[in-house]
C-alpha cells in the first residue's frame, strides 16, 4: 500500500482505537468551540442538529467485554448490541458526556433507551420518534416535527434557543454532507477498483474514526486520504483475493472484518449500520442501486427529514426494497463472489430479512454465508473454518464456471 495512505489510515485507526483518551481530551473540543459531547445511536439520529446545537456528536457502539450491570435491567435475550451499549453506560463509560439521543428503531433499543433515561446520570436525554414506514403520507412532516422537538431540546441544553440551532443547521449540514460525499467516494473506489485501495477492515476503521473524531478534523483527514487514493490509479496487478460484500447491523470491531479477510478474501463493499447505511442515500426515483449516493445538503428541517427518509434503509424500516436493491447493486458492481451476513445475536429485524436477502442473492448467482456476531465480534470458534469452507466453495464454483475445474464438484 502507498505509504501516505497507510499513514493516514493508521492515524484514523488510532483515533478510533484510542477513543476514550481522544474523547477525554476536552480541551480539544473546547478549543474547537463545542459546548459538550452528546452520544447518539444508529444512523437515524441527525448528527447535523447535534452539531448545530454546538455539541460534539459521538456514535455509541458497544465494546467487547460486558461485565454485567445490564443484567439487572435487560434479559439475556435482548439484542447483544443494545445490551453491550447499555452495560457500558451503566458502568459510567460515558460519564463525561452531556447526554444521548436515541432515534426510534427497534424494540430492544427502545427499552434500552428507557433504562438509560432512568439510570444513566446525564443532563440530556432525548428519544426521537421517527417513521418506521418511510413512505407513509405525512412521514416527512412527522419526521420534521420530531426533529424540531430535538432541535428545541438541544437548544435548551446548549443555552441557545431552537432558532439559534436552526440558524446553524445549513452550516453543519454542509459539513456532514461533505463527509458523506467523501465516504461515498472512498467506498466507490473500493468497490470498483480491480484491487481495492483499502481492505474492508481498514475502511471500517476509517468510518468508525468519523463517528468519534471532531468533524472538521475528520473531514480534512478524510479528504487527504481520498485524494491519495484517487491518485493511485487502478492498481490492477497481481492476483486479487476473493471479493466479498458484508451485510448486517452495527459492526464496531474492525477485527471482525479482518478475520474474514485473513481467511483469503477482501471485503470490497458493505451494507452495514457502520458503513454505507450511514452515508448512502437512494436517488430520486431509483430503487437504490446505481444512483445511491451521498444525497444533497438539507437547508431546513424538511430537507433534513427527507434526507433521512430516503437514505438506504435499515431493516427496522418499511419498505425495505431500497435496502435489497442497494445490496444487490453493491455486490454486482463490486464484482463480489459472495456475501457474508453478520447477524447480531438476538437482532430480530436483521434475522427476519436474512432468508429473503439470501434468496435474492442466490437468484443473482451469489452464494452467502451467515455468521453470528455479539457486540460486533464473531461468536463462534469455528467461524474461520466456515469461512474457509465458504471461500473454497466459491473457488470451486469459479473453476467450474471457467471450465478449468475438470470434474464437476
Amino acid at each position, binding site marked *: 500500500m502507498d505509504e501516505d495512505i497507510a499513514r493516514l489510515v493508521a492515524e484514523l485507526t488510532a483515533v478510533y482505537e484510542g477513543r476514550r483518551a481522544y474523547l477525554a481530551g476536552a480541551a480539544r473540543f473546547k478549543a474547537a468551540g463545542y459546548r459538550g459531547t452528546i452520544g447518539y445511536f444508529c444512523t437515524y439520529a441527525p448528527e447535523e442538529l447535534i452539531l448545530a446545537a454546538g455539541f460534539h456528536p459521538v456514535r455509541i457502539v458497544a465494546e467487547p467485554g460486558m461485565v454485567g450491570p445490564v443484567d439487572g435491567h435487560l434479559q439475556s435475550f435482548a439484542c447483544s448490541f443494545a445490551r453491550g451499549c447499555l452495560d457500558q453506560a451503566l458502568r459510567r463509560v460515558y460519564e463525561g458526556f452531556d447526554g444521548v439521543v436515541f432515534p426510534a428503531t427497534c*424494540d430492544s433499543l427502545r427499552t434500552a433507551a428507557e433504562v438509560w433515561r432512568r439510570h444513566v446520570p446525564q443532563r440530556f436525554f432525548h428519544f426521537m420518534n421517527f417513521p418506521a414506514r418511510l413512505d407513509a403520507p405525512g412521514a416527512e412532516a412527522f419526521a420534521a416535527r420530531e426533529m424540531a422537538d430535538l432541535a428545541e431540546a438541544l437548544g435548551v441544553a446548549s443555552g441557545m434557543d431552537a432558532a439559534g440551532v436552526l440558524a446553524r443547521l445549513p452550516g453543519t449540514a454542509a459539513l456532514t454532507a461533505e463527509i458523506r460525499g467523501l465516504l461515498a467516494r472512498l467506498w466507490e473506489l473500493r468497490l470498483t477498483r480491480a484491487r481495492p485501495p483499502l481492505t474492508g477492515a481498514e475502511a471500517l476503521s476509517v468510518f468508525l474514526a468519523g463517528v468519534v473524531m471532531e468533524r472538521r478534523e475528520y473531514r480534512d483527514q478524510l479528504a487527504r486520504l481520498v485524494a491519495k487514493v484517487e491518485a493511485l490509479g487502478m492498481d490492477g496487478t497481481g492476483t486479487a483475493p476473493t471479493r466479498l460484500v458484508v451485510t448486517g447491523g452495527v459492526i464496531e470491531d474492525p477485527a471482525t472484518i479482518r478475520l474474514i479477510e485473513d481467511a483469503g478474501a477482501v471485503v470490497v463493499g458493505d451494507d452495514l449500520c457502520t458503513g454505507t447505511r450511514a452515508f448512502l442515500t437512494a436517488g430520486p426515483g431509483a430503487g437504490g442501486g446505481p444512483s445511491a449516493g451521498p444525497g444533497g445538503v438539507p437547508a431546513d428541517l424538511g430537507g433534513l427529514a427527507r434526507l433521512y427518509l430516503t437514505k438506504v434503509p435499515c431493516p427496522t424500516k418499511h419498505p425495505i426494497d431500497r435496502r435489497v436493491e442497494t445490496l444487490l447493486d453493491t455486490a454486482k458492481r463490486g464484482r463480489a463472489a459472495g456475501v457474508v451476513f453478520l447477524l447480531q445475536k438476538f437482532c430480530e429485524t436483521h434475522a427476519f430479512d436474512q432468508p429473503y436477502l439470501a434468496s435474492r442473492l442466490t437468484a443473482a448467482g451469489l452464494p452467502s454465508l451467515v455468521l453470528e456476531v455479539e457486540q460486533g465480534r464473531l461468536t463462534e470458534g469455528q467461524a474461520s473454518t466456515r469461512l474457509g469452507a465458504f471461500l473454497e466453495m466459491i473457488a470451486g464454483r469459479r473453476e467450474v464456471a471457467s471450465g478449468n475445474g475438470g470434474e464437476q464438484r
Partner: protein
Amino acid sequence: MTADRTAAAAVKPAGRLKVDADLKRLMGKYYSGVFWAHRLRRPIAWITSGAPVEPLYAMGITPVYPENYGAILGARKVSAEFCEIAEGAGYSRDLCSYARGSIGSMMADRGPLNGHGLPAPDLLICAKNICNVVVKWWEVMARHYHKPLFVLDVPYVPEEPAKPHQLDFVRGQLDEMIAFLEKHTRRRLSHPRLVRVLENSTATVALWEEVQGYRRASPSPASALDMFTNMAPIVTLRGTDEAVGYYRKLAAELKGRAERHEGPVPDERYRLVWDNIAIWHNLRLMKYFHERGAVFVGESYTNAWGEYTFSPDELKDPIGAMARQYSGVLLNVGPEVRLARLLKMGRDYRADGVVFHSNRSCKTYSLSQYFLARGVQDRLGLPTLFIEADMADPRAYADAVAKTRIDAFLEILEGRRGAGGATVDSTRTGGGGPAC
C-alpha cells in the same frame, strides 16, 4: 390477610366454565367462517392483534389473526414442529415463536385446523403498535403470497397522551388504510357502519371489564386459565354482535359464580397477577398453582383488551378516535404507564404477588419486566416471581426449574401470611429475576 376472602361458603364449581362450550362453538364458527370466506372468494385480510379491525368488519372483510393462530399452535402442542420448518428455511430460532410457527405452517401449507394452513390472504394489515417484529413477519407473508401489505406506523408513546402531531401521523395513515381496503376489495366503507362496529367494540370491552371486575371477589370466580382462552373472541371478533353476545353470557356466569362464592380455587390462599402472554404449550402450569392454593386474579395480557373503548362523543370522529385508541395500547406505551396499569391491577384485585413470564419470544413485552418488578416490590411491597419460558415454543422452557421456583415463591407468600403481610426481603432472591 387472605383469610377474610376465603369465605366459609366457598365452593369449587363442578367443572370449567359452562360458557366454554359456547366459546368452542364460537371460535369454531369463526374459523370455519374464515375457511368459507376463502371458498366463497370473500376478501380475507391477515391482520395483527393490535391493528384497527373495525373498518374491516364494517366492510365485510374477514380478518384472520396469525398471532392467534400462533397461540393455537402452541396450545395444541404442534408449535415446535412448525417452528422447525421455518428454522429450516433460515429463520433464526431467536425470533418470535408465533412468527416462526405461522411461517412454518404457511410454508408447508399444513396446520391443525383443517389439515391445511390458514387460507391465503387477499391483503395484509400490520400495525406497528405492538412490536417491530410484526412488520418484518408481515413482510415475509406478503412476499410469500404476493399480496398487498399495509403497514400502519404508530409512533412510540412513552407517556400518555400521544402528542397531536403523532396522532395526525396515525390519522393520515388510517385514511390511507381505508382507501387501501377499498381499492383492494372494491368495497366501500360506510361510516355509519364503522361507527356501529366501534360501538360494538366498546360494548364488548365494557362486558370484558365487567367480567374482569368479578374477579375482585374471593374466591375469584375465574383464573388465568379461564381468561387466557376466553380472550380469543375479544381479539378476533371485537366489533361483532357475536362477541357482544358471548361476553354477555360469560359475564352472567361469572356474576353467578361470584355470588355463590364459587371459584376454581375455593380455598384461595394467594391471589396473583400474571404479566406477559400465556405459556400456551403448558397451560397445565396454572393448575400447579391452583393445587397449591394460588389463583391468578388478573393478567396484564387479558387486561390490555379492556382499553379499546370509544366514547359516544369521540365517535363523532371515528378516525381520530381510532388513532388515539390504537396509539395507547399496552405494548406501545412507556414502562411508567405499564407500571401504573400493573399497580392498579395489583391494588384493585388485592394481589399477594406478581408473576412475570419472562418470554424470550416477545421483546416488547418482556424487556421492561425488571423495571416493573422493582416497581411492584417498592410501591406495593409485593413479592415477584420470574418464570423463564416462551409462549409457544416448548423447547425454551424447563418445567422442573419453573416448578422449583414456584414452590419457593409460594413459600415466601406463606411466610408473609404468617408475618401479617410484612415485606419479606428474601423475595428478591425468591423471585428468580436477577434484578428482583
